[in-house]
């Protein structure tokens, strides 16, 4: 397993290098620079600013020195937020984004697995159709629609929950978590239904039933472990997706997370910020994919043998 992890990490190096290079040259080729503004900027000011951020050097030189800095874990200064480094800004935004992703994942898992298991227990009955139709609706409902609807109903109309904020007012994390989690809950519901249906028709479950075990014992002890493998495989990419895709929810609920920085950085042509965030997210995605693959190996002995045989 360790060897598997090591190999995968080795493969990650060229992937990251390609991501950095492509992003670097793309952002530098976009029209408009970080210091252009509505009001004309005097050339002497532009020169002073470019000199300060090394933008007066040839592009390849900037590229090489950027790679050097990244190797040392230094993502450089932000062009837009005077005096802040990209590392500092990521550190400031990560806790909120990670917490939001965690809660959203929790929402997704609780709702998704419950609905999927319920549906799998009585396929092709109302107990199956209802949660699965809801799941379809959840997949189709974009967060920029669901968020404001939830806010209108629970925040403004019923006044049960705060309309925005993060850790400022009790309960302000609930609506964002539900908004972000719902789409993923829907996927998980469908995945766990499929997984459970397959497992519940297997011989060992029939044996368990024949032995007279109670249904909860069968579901929770015997069926879930196998039935949730598709869900586990989905967790890694899902968590990376939650971390990187929370921009809309962060904007709707005024959450001080990373997503807003990422999008603002692109609009601002904050080169180092765009690059830094891209490197950061690329690393996260690689890591989470690796983790979920390793988890799947651990859960499924068949796969473990294959991986062991190949490496």
């Amino acid at each position, binding site marked *: 397993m360790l060897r598997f992890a090591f190999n995968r990490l080795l493969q990650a190096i060229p992937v990251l290098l390609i991501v950095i290079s492509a992003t670097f040259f793309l952002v530098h080729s*976009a*029209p*408009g620079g970080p210091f*252009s*503004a*509505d*009001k*004309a900027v*005097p050339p*002497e*000011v532009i020169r*002073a*600013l470019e000199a300060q951020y090394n933008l007066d050097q040839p592009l390849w030189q900037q590229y090489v020195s950027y790679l050097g800095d990244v190797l040392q874990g230094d993502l450089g*200064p932000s062009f*837009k*937020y*005077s*005096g*802040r480094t990209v590392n500092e800004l990521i550190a*400031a935004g990560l806790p909120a984004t990670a917490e939001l992703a965690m809660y959203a994942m*929790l*929402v997704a898992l*609780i709702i998704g697995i*419950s609905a999927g*298991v*319920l549906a799998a*227990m*009585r*396929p092709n009955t109302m107990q199956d159709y209802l949660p699965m139709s809801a799941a379809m609706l959840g997949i189709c409902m974009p967060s920029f629609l669901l968020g*404001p609807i939830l*806010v209108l109903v629970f*925040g*403004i109309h019923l006044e049960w*929950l*705060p*309309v*925005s*904020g*993060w850790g*400022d*007012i*009790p*309960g302000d994390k*609930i609506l964002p*978590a539900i908004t972000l989690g719902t789409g993923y809950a829907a996927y998980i519901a469908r995945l766990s239904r499929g997984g459970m249906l397959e497992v*519940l028709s297997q011989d060992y*479950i*029939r044996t368990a039933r024949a032995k007279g075990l*109670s249904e*909860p014992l069968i*579901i929770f002890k015997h069926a879930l472990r196998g039935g949730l493998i598709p869900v586990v495989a989905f967790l890694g990419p899902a968590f990376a997706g939650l971390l990187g895709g929370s921009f809309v929810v962060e904007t*709707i*609920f*005024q959450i*001080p997370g990373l997503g*807003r920085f990422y999008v*603002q950085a692109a*609009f*601002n*042509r904050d080169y180092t910020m765009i690059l830094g965030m891209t490197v950061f997210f690329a690393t996260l995605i690689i890591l989470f994919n690796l983790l979920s693959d390793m988890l799947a190996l651990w859960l499924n002995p068949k796969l473990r043998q294959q991986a062991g045989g190949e490496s």
Partner: protein
Amino acid sequence: MKPQVSVSTASQLSAIILILTSSLLLGSCGSSENNVSKGNRTGTLHWGNGTEPQSLDPHIATGVPEHKIIIALMEGLVLKDRKTLEPRPGVAKSWEISDDGRVYTFHLRDNARWSNGDPHNAHDYVWSWWRALQPALGNLYAYMYFSIENAKEYYEGEISDFEQVGVKALDDLTLQVTLKNPTPYFLQLLDHYSLYPVHQATVEKFGSADQRGTRWTYEGNIVGNGAFQLRDWKINRRVVVERNPYYWNADNVRLNEIVYYPTENAITEERMFRAGQLHYSGTVPADKIATYQSNNDPALRIDPYLGIYFYRINVETPQLQDKRVRRALGMTIDRDQLTQRILKAGQIPAYAITPPGTMGYYPESDLRFDPEAARQLLADAGYPNGEGFPSTEILYNTSEGHRKLAVAIQQMWKKHLNIDVTLLNQEWKVYLNSVSMKDYQIGRAGWIGDYVDPNNFLDMFLCNGGNNRTGWCNPVYDELILKHAPEAKTQEERLEIFTQAEKMLLADMPVIPIYIYTSNNLVDPSVKNFSGNILNQPSFSEIYLEPDNGGQQ
């Protein structure tokens, strides 16, 4: 085979789901008082501030959100009346102006202090203004100093001795400023944050004076001289300022704290306002204005704003080189219809570049909506009934509001002049790049005044003006603005020169004025002393909170 599950198991599972979800829903839910009512009790103003401030250094910052925070933390020699914008004593308790209008002598308060208790005196201004004029600092507002004698020459490196710049500390409490020419708006400039003083010891503690991006403006570091001091700055979350006990007028400051929220999104901010999380929001989504208006909601405040929305014309475009064509375009925009049917938030149709009433200046304009005369002009220019007029493009930065207006104007030009116009939208930075490279034909533009004077609008169109961007150049116009206006003996004479210049601009029409902006604010009724003014500048030291139903509580 169908898996069979007993009914009791299903209900057990449902019960588990119910318990889990309800615990998530209710776990952190408690009875909560909204920010506004709590703030009214504790004297905390909750302020929707648009975006995350990029810098709180008054010599580096440029944006409106930064402005709203800096004016709480710092103060200039002179303040403005919150309604009329007339100069009021700030750090300077009084001042004299020499007869020739060039020498200003300021007498500073002896009780002025920095927020760390240090004495605050005239030398602070000499040092701060020296710092603001260091080119390496990259101060975008350096031009605000250029009315001071030799400031421009120093900034551009023509002279290297700061002693020659017209600012001297005669003693600890007396500051003398010598101007190049009489500048009637000079006192106003002193209330612009780019001329605020900074605390030398603090700036130098975190880097050299002309170094950008040091940490001196961060929480725990920054020292200011304003009514408030910085307590907390959480990126993308909030900036909190609290009363500065050393402020010279601290006894009359009634707010205890201001919490600024960087919301980025106007729709979110409006929703926060509606839910009582904000006392103030300065960005009302356009489609929400009508709702507030039809409900007669007192929270919506619409005031004229010192800003103009206009179209630039690239006069180097072949079909737009003839000023008759440009005039014809200007004369076929039905501004009343645009403001009443599309904008619908009290905007005023504009027929000149300078908003009327700017420092007593009312531009004389012969521009009017006159399709008949416009068709004649176009025919005279060689395009009778629009025949043979090449397709022309309007460039605007991506925004629904700009698009709607451009579509309406496109239709008006088709209807009245029978010419074909296409629309092109570009993302903000791409658009800025296109306009500054003059890679456009007709381009949407806006200009917000930094100070209340026609000069701030008219000097945009000097031949070498960085904000001209039209290719239009008229040496006579330049001479009026650069030479005759500053040397005018009286304000009347000066305004007369501006009138003359603006007429020239309108006759050639390298820019088409469209409408005068309004500031749209949502202000909770408990916020007192919030006065709309044409700079949309609040006076935080005067604002206080008092719920209207206070007597019942």
